[in-house]
C-alpha cells in the first residue's frame, strides 16, 4: 500500500508541531522516519492513522492507499485501521489492554473487520503467535504476565493478524534491551517482507533504522531536514541533524560493544 503525504501540517492548540511534510512510501517499501525526541515523528504517524488528539488541526494532504485520511470521517478511518494499516506502538506495556487476555487482543482486529467464527479466529491467533515466536498457550495470559519482548511480539501479532498492506511501527524497540531490539526488528522486517506490505518505521536510533529500512527521512523541529537511502545517510551524513543522529548511533554501538 502506498503513502503519499504532501505539505502535511499539524498544530496543537494553534502551536505548529509538524510543518510542510512531503513523504512518499511505495508499495512494498520499508521507509524510516528518524528524529530526536519532540521532532514530531509520532504526530506524523498519528495523522496518518487519524489518531491525533481532538484539539489538533491538520492541514495538507495524506493519501493512504488512495484514501485522503486528513479529511476522512471516523468510520472511514476506523475501517482502514487494523484492516489495511497495522500499527506497532512504542511501549506495549502502556498500549496493550491490561484487562484483556493476549488472545482476545490479537483477535480484536479480526473480530472488527471480518465475519469469522470464534474457532477460526482462535486458530488464526494461534498461527500468528507461532509466527512471532510465541507459544500458543500464551493466548490465555494477560499482558502483565509477559516480559517486555513477549509483549512487543504480541503487539506485532496484533498489528499483522489481518495481513495489512501497511505497517506503521512507532518506535517499536525503544522500550527494549539491545538484544531484544535486534530480534524484534528482524522479526518485523521478515514478516513485513513475507506479506509484501509497506512499512513506515519510526525511531530515533540510526543503528535500528539501518536494519529495518532501505530509505529514510530525517525530521528536525517538525520539518524534513534530510532524506535518502538509509545506508548512504549512515555512511556519509551531510545535514547537521543527520550527522548528530549518526554520531549518537555510533556512540551507542561503541557503548554496547
Amino acid at each position: 500500500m502506498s503513502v503519499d503525504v504532501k505539505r502535511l501540517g499539524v498544530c496543537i492548540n494553534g502551536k505548529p508541531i509538524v510543518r510542510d511534510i512531503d513523504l512518499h512510501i511505495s508499495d512494498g517499501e520499508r521507509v524510516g522516519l528518524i528524529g530526536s525526541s519532540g521532532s514530531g515523528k509520532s504526530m506524523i504517524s498519528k495523522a496518518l492513522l487519524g489518531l491525533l488528539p481532538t484539539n489538533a488541526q491538520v492541514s495538507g494532504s495524506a493519501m493512504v492507499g488512495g484514501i485522503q485520511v486528513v479529511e476522512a470521517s471516523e468510520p472511514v478511518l476506523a475501517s482502514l485501521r487494523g484492516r489495511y494499516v497495522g500499527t506497532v506502538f512504542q511501549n506495549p506495556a502502556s498500549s496493550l489492554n491490561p484487562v484483556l487476555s493476549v488472545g482476545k487482543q490479537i483477535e480484536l482486529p479480526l473480530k472488527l473487520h471480518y465475519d469469522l467464527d470464534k474457532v477460526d479466529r482462535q486458530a488464526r491467533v494461534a498461527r500468528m503467535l507461532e509466527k512471532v515466536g510465541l507459544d500458543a498457550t500464551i493466548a490465555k495470559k494477560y499482558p502483565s504476565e509477559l516480559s517486555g519482548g513477549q509483549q512487543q511480539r504480541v503487539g506485532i501479532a496484533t498489528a499483522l493478524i489481518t495481513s495489512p498492506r501497511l505497517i506503521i511501527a512507532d518506535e517499536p524497540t525503544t522500550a527494549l534491551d539491545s538484544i531484544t531490539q535486534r530480534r524484534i526488528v528482524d522479526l518485523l522486517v521478515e514478516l513485513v517482507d513475507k506479506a509484501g506490505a509497506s512499512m513506515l518505521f519510526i525511531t530515533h536510533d540510526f543503528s535500528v533504522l539501518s536494519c529495518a529500512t532501505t530509505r529514510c527521512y530525517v525530521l528536525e523541529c517538525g520539518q524534513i531536514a534530510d532524506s535518502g537511502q538509509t545506508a548512504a545517510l549512515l555512511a556519509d551524513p551531510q545535514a547537521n541533524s543527520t550527522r548528530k543522529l549518526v554520531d549518537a548511533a555510533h556512540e551507542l554501538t561503541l557503548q554496547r560493544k
Partner: protein
Amino acid sequence: MRFIVRRFLLFVAALFVISVVIFAALRILPGDAPSVMAGLNAPPERVAMLRSQMGLDRPLAVQYSSWIDGLLHGDFGISLLTGRPIGSMVAARCSVTFPLIVLGLIVAIAIGLTFGVMAVLTTRPALRSGFHLLGLIGGAIPALWGGLLLILLFGRGTGLLGVLPSQGFPETGWDSFRTAFASLVLPALTVGVISGASLMRYTRSALGDIMHSGYIDQAMACGYTRRAAALKVGLRLTMPQLVSVVGLMFASMITGVMVVENLFALPGIGTGLVTDLGNRDLIAVQSELFMLAAFFLFIGFLVDLLHRFLDPRLRYAVQERA
C-alpha cells in the same frame, strides 16, 4: 481463594474492633441513659429499675459479651422505648432505606455515567463547559435545598405539577407497591442527582485520563472509532475506579439519607437512628450503629472482590508476591 479468606478475616477483625468502639463510645457519652428515659422528676427507684432492665448494672464485660452473643444469634434486643424487638424495628426501617438507596444509586449511575461519558466524548468546547458547570452545580446543591426544590416542583398538594407524594410512606409498606414506590421517587431523585453529579465528575476525570492513554490508541488502531473505544475499552478500564466510588457512595448514602428521610418524613434508618439517639435508647442505637458499620465494611469487602475480578493485574501481583 486465599485472598477471599484473608479479606474475610480482616472483615471479621474490623467488625470486632468496631463493636468495641461503639459499645465503649455509647457508655462514655454524656447523659445517663436510664435517667433520660425515666424523665426529669422520676424517682431513683424508677431509674434503678430501668438501669436493671437495660442491663446497665452488670459489669461492662458481661454487658458486651451478652450483646455480642445476642447479635450472633440474631437477637438484637428489645427497645425499652417501644417494647418491640430491635431486629424487626430495624428490618422495617431497612425496607424503606435500602430501596431508597438502590433507587438513588440507579439515578446517580444513570446521570453520572451518561453525562460523564458525554462530557469526555463531546468535541464542542461549549458543551464540555456546560457539562463541567452541571457537575459543579449538581455537586454543590445541599440535599435539603434540592429536596425542597423537587417538592415545590413535583410534590402533590403544594408542588407546581403536583404529581408525586412528598411526605410519608404507606403504613402497609411494600404491600401497597405503587404508593410505596411513588413515595420514594422524589427522595431518590434528591439523593441520586447530587451523587450523580459527583459520579459524573469522577467518570469525566477517569475516562478523560484513559482517553489520552496508549490503550485507546491501540484499540483505535485495531479498528474502533473514538466513541467505540471510549465505551468498550475506556469505560472497562475505568471500571475498577468507578466501582470504588460507587461502593463508597452506596455505603455513605446510608448515613447521607438521614436528611432526605427527615425532609420527606420517611420512617427509615436515618430517621429512626436520630429518634433513638435523642431518646437515649442505648440498646437500639448500639445495634443499629453496629449494623450500619457492618454494612459499610461489607460493601468494602465486596468492592475488594470486584476489583480483583475486574483487574487481572491485581490477581497476578498477588500470585507473584506469594
